[in-house]
């Protein structure tokens, strides 16, 4: 590594020194780590760094090119905003878990081979789970374990895939895979990546775990896992038709759940699936414009989704609930939080001058450009659902609408949370208003003008008429205090079914077997025992007793010789001596 310092190093090593600091100094140190990360990304130049040999396998720690740099940039920026938002947390463990999670993501993004990728991939799963456990409720603990199991399964898919890939190609190099040349090793790798990108039906871990995470942890979680997965998909599997179709399906699937969920953080979690769907679809369409769109949307999405989670987290932190049925009318007590949330909401919905407008539309335009009109229509339908759910429903039923519950003592969150939200809002605005700087970061040259008359007209119609329909249907769209089933039903109820199966099938079989043993096994055992008893008595004892009788016979003769008189003993000894002498001579 001549002139490149791996940005992950600052997070992985820096976090270890965190417990040494106290008070204000600790807070400075927490912010210095991401600042060092930002600086190291800023001074990076393109190239391959940190090649290594391990057991005869060639590895590469640092592939620094345009595609990896887009993600590295947004990861380090997000780590700063996330650290600022979490600055009031007392537990060192929370900060360390966050930094290891960021370090893992950076390591995965710069990895040039599957082995390095796999190591950082697992580091991400095992550090991020702590952010869920720091939710500190019984549900958080359970959801964390399910999250971990799911990601271990995904890691195994990736591991199996890369091993078969190695035996097929003789290399661990992680490069673009042509769609025509892919067979099952590549598809195993794809499945491992897809699980982290929450591609349906491998998505259930996300809405299961993220809403149970700590307020600050959720801000980190929503940014890194799924977007690292988008990066690896863009790197390896661009142009795979299945991704175009599954991605589009995800966009609609996510908003359907976002429309019906009650907990703000569950709405946002389901909505991640929808947003990542846009990126996956962009990767699947695979043209330069579409892959640019996927990278741009990942960048923009990380910021505004984190902003939305910050807003929802602030509401949860101050009121103690994030369920819309228990909120309403709190704009009076948290006006700044409301404004920041709304900035996130209009960014994600794609309002002009905010980031979604310049990123999401690139993917939609790429589908349009390729003549994939059905994909384009469904992507725009998901856009409608986005504004309807995250934009209008959550804003209205949380900050406006009827007040449910007493929140009069509620006020704005701590200053560090407000600053994090303010800075993130500013970035969303800057990206949307000055897209040319943002487009320079993209992997391919961008020839797309989001502010054309036809695109403005399209987006303004979609947004404004969604507003109209919401206004007309507002009573029908009121959230219900209910839980909505998803794929996780099968494995969560599956364990209950397994216990029932155990009670109804395994336990009776076990009991029957025991009974069988008792009746048949024990009887035969008793039978053999009787036989061996008889044998013991008659045969063995006969032999043993016979020997004993002869020993006793000799003993009684010897006994007669033992008179107790010394003369007899001397006499007998002399007799014996002469007998031996006579025998020898």
């Amino acid at each position, binding site marked *: 590594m001549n002139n490149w310092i791996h940005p992950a190093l600052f997070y992985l090593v820096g976090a270890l020194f965190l417990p040494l600091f106290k008070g204000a100094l600790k807070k400075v140190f927490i912010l210095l780590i991401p600042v060092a990360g930002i600086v190291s990304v800023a001074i990076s130049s393109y190239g391959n760094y940190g090649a290594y040999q391990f057991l005869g396998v060639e590895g590469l720690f640092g592939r620094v090119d345009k595609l990896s740099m887009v993600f590295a940039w947004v990861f380090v920026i997000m780590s700063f905003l996330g650290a600022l938002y979490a600055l009031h947390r007392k537990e060192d463990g929370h900060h360390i878990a966050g930094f290891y999670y960021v370090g893992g993501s950076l390591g995965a993004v710069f990895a040039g081979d599957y082995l390095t990728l796999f190591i950082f991939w697992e580091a991400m799963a095992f550090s991020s789970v702590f952010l869920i456990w720091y939710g500190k409720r019984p549900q958080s603990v359970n959801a964390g374990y399910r999250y971990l199991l799911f990601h271990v399964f995904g890691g195994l898919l990736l591991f199996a895939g890369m091993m078969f890939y190695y035996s097929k190609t003789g290399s661990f190099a992680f490069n673009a895979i042509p769609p025509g040349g892919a067979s099952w090793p590549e598809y195993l790798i794809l499945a491992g990546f897809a699980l982290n990108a929450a591609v349906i039906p491998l998505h259930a871990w996300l809405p299961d775990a993220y809403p149970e995470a700590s307020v600050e942890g959720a801000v980190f979680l929503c940014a890194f896992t799924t977007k690292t997965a988008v990066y690896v998909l863009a790197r390896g599997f661009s142009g795979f038709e299945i991704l175009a179709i599954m991605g589009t399906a995800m966009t609609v699937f996510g908003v359907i759940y976002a*429309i*019906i969920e009650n907990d703000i953080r569950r709405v946002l979690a389901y909505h991640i699936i929808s947003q990542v769907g846009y990126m996956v679809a962009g990767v699947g369409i695979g043209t330069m414009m579409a892959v640019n769109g996927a990278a741009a949307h990942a960048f923009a999405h990380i910021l505004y989704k984190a902003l939305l989670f910050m807003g929802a987290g602030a509401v949860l932190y101050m009121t103690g609930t994030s369920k819309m049925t228990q909120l309403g009318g709190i704009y009076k007590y948290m006006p700044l939080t409301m404004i920041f949330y709304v900035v996130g909401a209009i960014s994600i919905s794609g309002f002009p001058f905010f980031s979604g407008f310049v990123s999401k539309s690139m993917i939609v335009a790429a589908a349009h450009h390729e*003549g994939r009109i059905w994909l384009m229509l469904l992507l725009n339908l998901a856009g*409608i659902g986005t504004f309807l759910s995250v934009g209008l429903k959550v804003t209205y039923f949380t900050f406006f609408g009827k007040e449910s519950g007493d929140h009069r003592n509620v006020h704005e969150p701590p200053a560090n949370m407000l600053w994090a939200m303010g800075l993130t809002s500013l970035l969303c605005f800057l990206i949307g208003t000055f897209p040319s700087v943002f487009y320079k970061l993209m992997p391919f040259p961008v020839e797309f003008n989001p502010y054309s008359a036809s695109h403005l*007209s399209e987006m303004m*119609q979609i947004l404004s*008429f969604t507003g109209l329909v919401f206004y007309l*249907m507002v009573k029908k769209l009121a959230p219900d205090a209910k839980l909505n089933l998803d794929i996780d039903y099968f494995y969560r109820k599956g364990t209950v079914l397994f216990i029932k199966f155990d009670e109804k099938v395994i336990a009776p079989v076990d009991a029957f077997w025991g009974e069988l043993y008792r009746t048949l096994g024990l009887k035969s055992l008793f039978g053999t025992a009787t036989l061996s008893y008889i044998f013991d008595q008659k045969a063995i004892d006969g032999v043993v007793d016979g020997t004993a009788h002869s020993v006793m016979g000799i003993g009684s003769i010897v006994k007669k010789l033992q008179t107790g008189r010394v003369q007899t003993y001397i006499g007998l000894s002399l007799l014996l001596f002469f007998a031996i002498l006579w025998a020898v001579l």
Partner: protein
Amino acid sequence: MNLVNILEYLRARIELLKKLFYGFLLLLVVFDVLLPREHAHFFVDKIPAFWTLFTVTGCFILARFSKGLAHTILGKKEDFYE
């Protein structure tokens, strides 16, 4: 607080805001109808005010469909898994 006062002020004049909003919607439709269409390749570009029609029908169906799912097969009690 200042911000809250502004919002209260606007909420007190909701009828006027509604009228402005309807006027804006009308303007959007007129704007789209007047857009030049000589480069249009696909039906989504050719039909005037296509996205208005698409949004009104799409949004209505999406909302009814999702809520319908929640009220029939998906919705369970909150302690369902406990």
